[in-house]
């Protein structure tokens, strides 16, 4: 039925109304088409968490979460530079993804059942296995999180952290008093000003904050207890399975590339010389895995050349030679006693 002028007018008015509630741009199924059309991927990242997502003085974004975005963009658009970064606070992030403001949320976000089942979002693949910890000043003499009885603890709002803190406080009868800030920066400032006895967030975050924000990082200690499991990774909107698969398999590809020794340094050489069937398959020399995903043959080769394999990404951003100085720990390959295990690319 052809719409009457009244219906058209009503429709237009409604479209304006809806776009107030939800920007109606790019949520309908074909995320990839939209990305290709604008020749740019929009990636939601942290407002500033060194090692994961932070802009330097030139406005260049770096970090583990950022490198994942770059790898995906390289696979889909052919270049890791075709990404626009949208810094998001914790409470903003899911709405930004739901509304189509961003294509992918790569912002140290914990996977949980509630988030998976009720937000209209899909959790792709774990890029970092983390756990929540506490940081205290060395001066306070606190050696264990169990000593935090009645303590004030600074925490950022809108995270799983708040709930974990409450569970831990209850289980150990500690009556911890949370002081909740909307912005990471405000929470950092309050902790370093001495408002709170302890600061809590994911252990990787603590290391990042200590290295960047503390006047003297040695004055602050991260307590040994980890009080939760925090598997972090990117999310995409539900209802677009092709895009979901692309993001997921780029991450698996980076992990498998490390397992089979393909790095950004040796990829050209391997491409030309390798006869290893797995390597040939990963680099698109034998099977065309890209076709199945709706990409071209070289999707993974480009992703690896752009960001490096998972191990390179880890070492560059958060590894032992960076200010964060994190060990691989659970983020080592499964062959080396870690949890990073990619399903086979074939």
């Amino acid at each position, binding site marked *: 039925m052809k719409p009457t002028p009244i219906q058209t007018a*009503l429709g237009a008015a409604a479209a304006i109304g809806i776009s107030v509630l939800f920007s109606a741009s790019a949520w309908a199924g074909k995320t990839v088409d939209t990305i290709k059309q604008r020749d740019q991927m929009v990636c939601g990242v942290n407002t500033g968490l060194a090692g994961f997502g932070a802009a330097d003085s030139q406005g260049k974004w770096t970090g583990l979460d950022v490198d994942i975005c770059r790898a995906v963009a390289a696979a889909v658009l052919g270049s890791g530079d075709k990404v626009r970064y949208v810094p998001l606070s914790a409470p903003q992030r899911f709405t930004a993804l739901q509304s189509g403001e961003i294509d992918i949320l790569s912002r140290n976000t914990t996977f949980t059942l509630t988030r998976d089942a009720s937000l209209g979002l899909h959790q792709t693949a774990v890029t970092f296995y983390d756990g929540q910890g506490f940081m205290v000043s060395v001066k306070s003499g606190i050696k264990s999180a169990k000593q935090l009885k009645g303590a004030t603890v600074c925490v950022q709002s*809108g995270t799983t952290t*708040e709930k974990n803190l409450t569970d831990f406080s209850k289980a150990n009868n500690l009556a911890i008093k*949370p002081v909740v800030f909307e*912005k990471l920066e405000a929470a950092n*400032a309050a902790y370093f000003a*001495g408002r709170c006895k302890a600061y809590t967030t994911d252990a990787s975050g603590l290391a990042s904050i200590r290295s960047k924000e503390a006047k003297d990082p040695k004055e602050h200690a991260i307590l040994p207890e980890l009080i939760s499991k925090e598997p972090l990774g990117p999310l995409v909107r539900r209802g677009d399975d092709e895009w979901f698969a692309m993001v997921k398999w780029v991450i698996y590809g980076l992990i498998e590339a490390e397992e089979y020794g393909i790095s950004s340094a040796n990829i050209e050489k391997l491409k030309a010389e390798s006869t290893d069937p797995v390597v040939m398959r990963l680099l698109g020399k034998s099977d065309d895995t890209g076709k199945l995903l709706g990409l071209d043959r070289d999707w993974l080769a480009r992703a690896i050349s752009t960001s490096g394999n998972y191990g390179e990404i880890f070492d560059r951003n958060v590894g032992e030679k960076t200010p964060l100085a994190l060990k691989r720990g659970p983020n080592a390959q499964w062959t080396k006693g870690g949890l990073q295990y990619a399903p086979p690319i074939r």
Partner: protein
Amino acid sequence: MDSRFCGFHCLRMKTTFWHLRQTRRWMYQIALMAGLLAFLAWLLSNTLANMKARGIQSGFDFLWANAGFDIGESMIRFDASEPYWRAFGVGLLNTLRVSLVGIALCTVMGTLIGVGRVSANALARGLGYAYTELFRNVPVLLQLLIWYVLLVEFMPDSQSPLHWNDWFFFSKNGFSFPIPVWDAQASSVVWDVPIWDGGEITQGVSLTPEFLAITLGLSFYTSAFVAEVVRAGIVSVPRGQLEAARSIGLSNGQTTRQVLLPQAMRVIIPPLTNQYLNLTKNSSLAVAIGYPDLVSISNTALNQTGRAVECIALIMLVYLGLSLGTSALMNAFNQRMAIRER
């Protein structure tokens, strides 16, 4: 009816119900209202349909689920195992606490400064002027952050608080002071004095730096506007009135109470209401400095449950209710103060 005997008015009597101007007027109003409601309903159902299509759960049922998070300061007992609606209640009470204390403080401060600005004393006038210009021209969020930094950065640790007479304690943990409480056993009023055992401070009343920063910040900011309102009210009373009052032998006090204030109040109350509303709404900035007001708690709830539309709607509803309530009270007060025509 015989039309021969009537003139023009008979024609109008014959007009049907639909042609009456009165009826038509009502019809337009009703049609407009219905159209508006239908549009809103359509908008709502469309939003819900869209959310459903994308697998986003909606509804207010989450209010009865366990909140699962603790709240730093609360006027009622709150525990993480209690439902979300109670968490929202805690947030609302915290917002009300800031608003009421802020309104009281800014009224007193604003009145003093406003009177100072029309005082005969040049120093009082100058100070009042400087105060007003300083506080109303710096963005309020910035002022809140400054207060918070002052209270947290420059105060001593909670282990070694500034104290006066062992009754008042200042530290990074806030300000503790004694309050009188009713002792049922002794049937008399006794002082509940803060106790400092070298570690944390217990007993007495403790105000957190977050509460102090938001309350003081909003009070100082709003009092600058209140001062201008008060000054405008005083200046609006014609000079002749005061001269007349003197000439019939009224004392200064009598002139102020009987002549100046009743007339000034008529000018002061309506814009003062505005300032009260502003203060209440500005209290939502508390989230920036970690005070658990309604917005802060809604933020947490929003993130735990993902019910963004519902949480935002709740916030809007509560602030609308608070504003309408304040307006109603102030309008009633205004009516009492209004001049009675005789």
